[in-house]
């Protein structure tokens, strides 16, 4: 028990760095931010698994040891308890007057049978040996305690099952039929598959974001998000609604709505007069959905790598009444405006290095291979700006996008059932009370006069009251009742 106590304490202490330091499993960007802010300390911490505390060998070691200690404690207790459940209540100790509860001269007209009947009526387990009645009650306490500890093992098994056979993925989905995505790893923005999950086994379905609605208070606080999706892959395509707190439940996967934003639609007409349209999701930077992003046209101007075109943009769903036009005044599109910063040059997309689609390549800018051409302009929907080489960009409008989390965790039902059992066991363990009573005939006073004694086997403040009530009840047990009861009991087994 002391070992378990030390391990519990260690477990609590070990979890603390998991909340103080950013964790990869919770927020990868903040871990990167920590590396940037503390370039000397971060690698050292990283070698100690400080950014993966809950997957670290030392955290695992603590809980594995805890469960070993739990098994080492629970298995022998389980054996003892099964034995106790099948055993009869033990004999009375020699000196009843030394027990916490004690009553002399209890007269029961019906003798030992009446005492036994009264105890049985109150659901005590009873054994009568040579006139002495022994009773025991409250086995549920130990049963509950064992159930609680075994349920903890169940929780661990459920978590393990989820990490082997579960998977999750994230995807940004722009509204409209051309944004449709299908459930394969190639189409995810990022994903994590369990150790025993084969990418080919993922459920096959496709999802199109048909509509997304957000409503806000006048203060800008969001009130409601609602998404409508067209799901295909499970029979005929069906229209399904989902929102925050109400995920889209599909066979073998659930789709959760996590975030949303705007994707400006831009049309660029190059030097050759060819027009291209792009839908560029912008990332929200604040609660008023001031959004930032990049619209790139790498194929513009006949594929000339030195004349690729891109626009850095700042999108304001509601442009404030007066400058500066750098922050949106409201999250909904009341007076949308797009500030565009034109760039021309080599976008650096062919370098083979993955780069952010929301930012221009800083290396290319620094090297002078990509440069800003002309002053930024604020465009309204339908407005356009002309660049220094006579090419033109139009702001056609925006589309909504949502970020989705697609997940499956087969361990969840196991964990839920285990937690339910854990709670039941916990309450039985905390509120159950094991106690014993004995009624022994006073020697030389006939079979109807008893000495009674009681022993609570755990903390039980109310035992004094229960014991005196029990003794009073036994005293008033009527012999007739007793006879009927014992006859009924005798008849029972035959």
């Amino acid at each position, binding site marked *: *028990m*002391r070992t*378990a*106590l030390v391990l*519990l*304490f260690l*477990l*609590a202490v070990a*979890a*603390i760095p*998991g*909340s103080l330091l950013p*964790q990869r*499993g*919770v927020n990868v960007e*903040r871990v990167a931010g920590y590396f940037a802010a503390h370039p000397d300390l971060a690698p050292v911490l990283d070698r100690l698994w400080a950014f993966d*505390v*809950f997957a670290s060998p030392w955290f695992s070691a603590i809980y594995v040891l805890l469960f070993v200690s739990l098994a080492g404690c629970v298995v022998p207790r389980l054996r003892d308890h099964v034995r106790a459940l099948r055993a009869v209540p033990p004999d009375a100790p020699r000196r009843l007057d030394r027990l916490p509860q004690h009553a002399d001269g209890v007269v029961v007209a019906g003798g030992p049978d009446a005492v036994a009947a009264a105890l049985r009526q109150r659901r005590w387990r009873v054994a009568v040996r040579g006139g002495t009645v022994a009773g025991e009650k409250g086995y549920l306490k130990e049963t509950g305690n064992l159930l609680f500890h075994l349920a903890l093992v169940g929780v661990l098994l459920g978590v393990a099952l989820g990490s082997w056979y579960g998977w*999750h993925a994230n995807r940004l989905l722009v509204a409209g039929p051309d944004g449709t995505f299908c459930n394969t790893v190639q189409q995810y923005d990022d994903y994590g598959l369990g150790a025993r999950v084969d990418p080919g086994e993922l459920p096959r379905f496709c999802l199109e974001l048909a509509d997304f609605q957000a409503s806000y*208070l006048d*203060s800008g*606080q*969001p*009130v*409601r*998000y609602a998404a409508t999706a067209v799901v295909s892959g499970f029979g005929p395509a069906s229209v399904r609604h989902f*929102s*925050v*707190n*109400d*995920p889209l439940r599909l066979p073998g996967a*659930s789709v*959760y709505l*996590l975030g949303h934003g705007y994707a400006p639609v831009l049309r660029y007409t190059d030097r050759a007069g060819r027009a291209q349209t792009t839908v560029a999701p912008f990332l929200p930077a604040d609660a008023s959905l001031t959004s930032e992003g990049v619209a790139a046209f790498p194929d513009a101007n006949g594929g000339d790598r030195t004349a690729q075109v891109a626009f850095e943009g700042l999108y304001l769903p509601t442009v404030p009444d007066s400058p500066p036009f750098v922050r949106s005044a409201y999250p909904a599109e009341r007076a949308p405006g797009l500030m565009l910063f034109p760039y021309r040059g080599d976008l650096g997309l062919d370098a083979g290095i993955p780069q952010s689609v929301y930012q221009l390549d800083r290396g290319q800018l620094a090297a002078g291979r990509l440069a800003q051409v002309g002053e930024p302009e604020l465009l309204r929907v339908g407005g356009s700006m002309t660049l220094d080489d006579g090419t033109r960009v139009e702001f056609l409008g925006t589309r909504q996008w949502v970020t989705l*989390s697609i*997940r499956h*965790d087969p361990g*969840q039902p196991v*964990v*839920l059932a285990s*937690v339910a059992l*854990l*709670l039941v066991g*916990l*309450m039985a363990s*905390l*509120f159950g009370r094991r106690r014993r009573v004995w009624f022994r005939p006073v020697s030389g006073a006939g079979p109807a006069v008893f000495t009674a004694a009681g022993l609570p086997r755990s*903390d039980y*403040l109310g035992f004094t009251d229960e014991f005196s009530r029990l003794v009073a009840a036994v005293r008033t047990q009527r012999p007739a009742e007793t006879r009927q009861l014992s006859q009924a009991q005798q008849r029972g087994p035959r």
Partner: protein
Amino acid sequence: MSMLSDQLLVVAILAYLVSMLCYAVEHAFGLRGAVARTATRELVGAGAGVEPAPATSPRGGATSPRGGVTSLRGMATSLRGATSWAGRAAVGATVFGVLAHLGCLVARGLAAHRMPWGNMYEFVLTVTFIGVVAWLVLAARRPAVRRLGLYVSLALVTLLGVAGLVLYTEVMPLVPALRSYWFVIHVSTAALASGIFLVGFVTAAMYLVRAGYEQGRVGFPYSLGHRLPTAGVLEPLTFRLHTLAFPIWTFAVAAGAVWAEAAWGRYWGWDPKETWAFISWVVYAGYLHARATPSVRRSTATWIAVLGWLTMLMNLFGVNLFFEGLHSYAGVD
């Protein structure tokens, strides 16, 4: 309605302050317990000319003088009257404070058209309300612990003061992430468990003071001990409060996990709030474990309960205000 709620908060804080003052009067001048009663009786007895037995104060030593007994008797009687009046006034003020507190919460809920648990300000108001109700129930059933009211009122005034001054937030409807029936289930049980843990913390701290006093330790805070209920009363009470709160807390965490599955896609993700809920759960489990281990001293076990409350406070204030996570509903700028 929102204005009314704010005014009722002030009324509640003032009422708890009055009750704190009354408890302090009772605490400072009160004579209590078997020893004190004996001492008074002996003073009175001596006044009536009966052979006095040496009246011993709990700290041992002081024998009542024979002379000037009549005036002592008068003083004792009037003091006893005054302190019992102060004690009654303290309970009265607490009850009045609870009513204002309840009114404050109800008005807040009516103003917002929802359960008043949408941000940290409202949550602290609810936890303290549950705490004070649990306290009143306890005080009604166990008059011996009523004197702890001073510390309960102190905790209440502090927490409500922090809520009103630091955490205050305008009435707002819920953000979409909180619009779920799990909101009612998860937050109410978390508040209920926190409120009971709060009372459990008060009795645990008082037990530690009293146990130290009974072992003969001197100096602050053990000097407060001689006015407290005995360690034999406080320790089982602490244990029972924790056995009541722990399953509720377990349920609250589990309900939070079920909700997290629906809202965020996973039932457990080591968000700072979740991590600290886990830490509190483990520490309180450690307390119950230590309490059931015969070789661990009761005072050691009770220290673990105190530690548990510190982790709860860390979760309520530390995580809401200093960490960035998914449970960022504090509404405090």
